[in-house]
């Protein structure tokens, strides 16, 4: 099981690096927000993996909070911050 979890952790780490590339290149706020969403999902997955590896449930409340807060973030950006993008093209 430990081997499996390390394989998964490697996959997630590569995924996180790729997402950070998109996060830095943008080019718009909305693009970064999509990348942010994926990054949050990867963090949730990583915390889940850690819980599975050590068979404890201490981090599960963090998963709940992250899955809610990530959503609030992207909605508010889409609602309010996106209008700064008007000149930029995706």
């Amino acid at each position, binding site marked *: *099981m430990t081997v*499996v*979890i390390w*394989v*998964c*952790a490697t*996959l*997630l780490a*590569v*995924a*996180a690096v*790729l*997402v950070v*590339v*998109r996060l830095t290149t943008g080019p*718009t706020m*909305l*693009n970064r*927000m*999509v*990348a942010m*969403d*994926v990054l949050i*999902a*990867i963090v*949730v*997955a990583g915390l*889940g*993996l850690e*819980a*599975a590896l050590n*068979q404890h*449930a201490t981090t*599960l*409340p963090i*998963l*709940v909070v992250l*899955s*809610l807060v*990530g*959503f609030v973030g*992207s*909605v508010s*950006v*889409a*609602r309010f911050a*996106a*209008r700064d*993008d*008007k000149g*930029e*093209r*995706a």
Partner: protein
Amino acid sequence: MTTVVEIASAVCLIAGSSLSLIAAIGLLRFPDLLSRMHAGTKPQVLGLLLILVGVGLRLRDWTDLGMLLAVAMFQLLTAPVSAHMIGRAAYRHDAVRADTLVVDELTPTLDDVGKG
């Protein structure tokens, strides 16, 4: 019995992590914002669900399963909402590339789309 559950859990975890990686690759490679959203939010929904199932199979505790179920439910309820909000904002702010669209039936009618 325990071995079977462990193997099922391992399969779920690996499949979920692979989908996360694929989501990241799609996010990087696709040409415009809306396509990136398909790559980002969608395999991610299934990927995250698979990982949660994998974790649930490994923990095997009712309290934890309830918590994981809550995460899965929030994910399923909120993912379409944020996807819609971002997609809509992208469209309204002209951030959509016309050259990757085969058909665009929205732009001609956008002016009279109801605000409610």
